[in-house]
């Protein structure tokens, strides 16, 4: 299976040229095949979010190459990166990051707005996505009228808006209790299995990581372990894990 994400020699440094120069990623090589559900774990400060932001093209690495779906992202201008973010990637944040003045429906429509989807189609698709995450009855609610789990489900619907290839989730259950976290995790499994999405999940919860197909462990900016997970609760259709090259 083709790799949708290919990172080679990714180095990230902060405070470059200053006495307190800090290297947080030490030349990582990661390949993620299309349709894989992979998790990244590691202690706090190990560089997980930094890595995720690079994959999401929100940040540029100091060195290295990164291709997403065959596109060499690091040579692209900002405008192209914006479009790639909007169309190829769906973000799910730990703190949801819904826009407060807009109801759930409008929040889900937002990525489509930037993808020039006509208004009618936007509304229809947003409604459909809210149904998938079982939030249809809350479509007209403002974010501050929703619980954390409900917000995160809206955020997942939003991440799916432009039918991206990759979903990037940085501690999506971090702000939720375990039962709600479970619910969110089930939605990710669903997106993976039913819709074939490639999912990169950062989590501090080892049990949740175990459910994914492959677990990458980071420590101080290095990959210190790659192992296969259980896939989804021993489901038979789970794709086989692939070794890190």
């Amino acid at each position, binding site marked *: 299976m083709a790799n949708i994400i290919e990172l080679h020699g990714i180095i990230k440094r902060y405070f470059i040229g200053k006495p307190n120069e800090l290297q947080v990623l030490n030349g990582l090589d990661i390949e993620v095949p299309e349709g894989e559900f992979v998790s990244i774990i590691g202690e706090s400060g190990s560089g997980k979010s930094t890595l995720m932001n690079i994959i999401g093209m*929100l*940040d540029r690495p100091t060195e290295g190459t990164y291709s997403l779906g065959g596109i060499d992202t690091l040579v692209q201008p900002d405008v192209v990166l914006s*479009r790639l973010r909007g169309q190829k990637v769906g973000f799910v944040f730990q703190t949801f*990051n819904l826009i407060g003045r807009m109801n759930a429906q409008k929040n889900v429509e937002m990525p489509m707005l930037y993808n020039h989807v006509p208004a009618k189609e936007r509304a229809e698709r947003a409604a459909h996505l809210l149904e998938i995450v079982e939030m249809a009855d809350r479509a007209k609610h403002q974010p501050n009228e929703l619980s954390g789990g409900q917000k995160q489900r809206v955020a997942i619907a939003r991440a799916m808006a432009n039918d991206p290839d990759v979903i990037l989730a940085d501690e999506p259950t971090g702000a939720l209790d375990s039962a709600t976290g479970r619910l969110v995790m089930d939605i990710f499994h669903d997106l993976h299995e039913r819709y074939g999405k490639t999912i990169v999940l950062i989590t501090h919860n080892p049990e949740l990581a175990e459910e994914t197909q492959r677990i990458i462990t980071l420590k101080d900016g290095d990959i210190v372990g790659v192992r296969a997970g259980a896939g989804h609760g021993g489901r038979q259709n789970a794709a086989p894990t692939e070794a890190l090259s």
Partner: protein
Amino acid sequence: MNFGDNISQAFTSLRANKMRALLTMLGIIIGIAAVIAIMTVGSSMQNSISDQMQSLGVNNITVYIQQKDDGWGRGGPGMMGAFPGQQQGPGEDDLITNEMLTALREEYPDEIQAYSLSVDVGSGSTTAGSKYAYISIMGANSEYMTANNIDITRGRFVNDQDSDGRRKVAVVSDKLVSSMFGEEDPIGKTIMAVTDSHVGTYTIVGVYQTESSDFGPTTTSDADTQTEMYIPLGTAQKIMGTDGYQMFTIMSATSVNATTFSEQVQSALGKYYSRNEEYEVSTFSMESMVETVTSMLSQVTLAISAIAAIALLVGGIGVMNIMLVSITERTREIGVRKALGATNGEIRAQFIVEAIVICFIGGIIGIILGIILGMIGVQVINSMSSGEGGDMSYGTSVSVNAILLATGFSMAIGLFFGYYPANKAAKLDPIDALRFE
């Protein structure tokens, strides 16, 4: 993201903070309202002043002699009848003579329709039996009536035959008639006129209406009011022992540009005075007065508008300030939007549109407010001028140009002052914006 989406996004975020949006608009509202109000009052006044003056006869040119400028600019257009230099007075040699008038008429036969001539005899009183009234006596030719819009209600005005025959006839005011003769017909009655230098008996041949008579029945103070008594020009000249005039009015043809013609008259008559050490000829026309007043008004309007424009500038800076605050507050939102696919240009457009929408709404409110204020202003001026006995009344005229200009200008302010904050938002690094606490 198309333009319509931008507008609806702008409204969404303005609705989220209505009070702030309103306060932000306030500067724009005040600035635009001030400009529109001033322009409304200004153009209303300008329109009706020129209307009024047009009806007063812009084609009359007043010619008068005045003492050569001794640094205090004696005399001037406002001096009808009341000469400041009267104590010493111009000598017989200084006056404008009939020869000059004839020569002038020969030089400009097409331009000059008629002369309105007058000689001031002085003021005093008239008596008939036990009744009396205060008057000032003015010798006038027949054209004087037309030139000065004298409204004869009974009898006739003094004419050339009266003048040639030096007849002792008089045209008096309706006020004088009512205080001296009551309801009786005054025509043919004789009155005795007394001034410092002259005593004479006159037969009344006509009555004219005083201007304020349309303000209801005569009041008690009317008996003490001094009114003009017109006698034939020749009669007055004989009394004063003079052939000349301190002033006269040219009634020029309607086709003539009174302003230019008055300059020509001034130089034509000026040559008679080139060797006169004390006096010179001056002219003034209603038309040049209209022009002066109109240009003064538009300058005042412009000057006040400039001040209002400063208010607009301050308003614009207010918009910029609030936009900067709002962008700082919404840094995370900007980060999220970028993560969801917004380009720098789209973020910039979003905030510029927001600023323009604020300024546009502010501009519209300002225009409405300005028109209302302008109308009130015109009403106030009208009530003030009618209170003084004037019959000026200004119609309100709102300039469409001013409205379009104000709308365009307010949006331009939004664009101008919105650009910097919007650009700042656009250039935010997505990851920095997302991490912003």
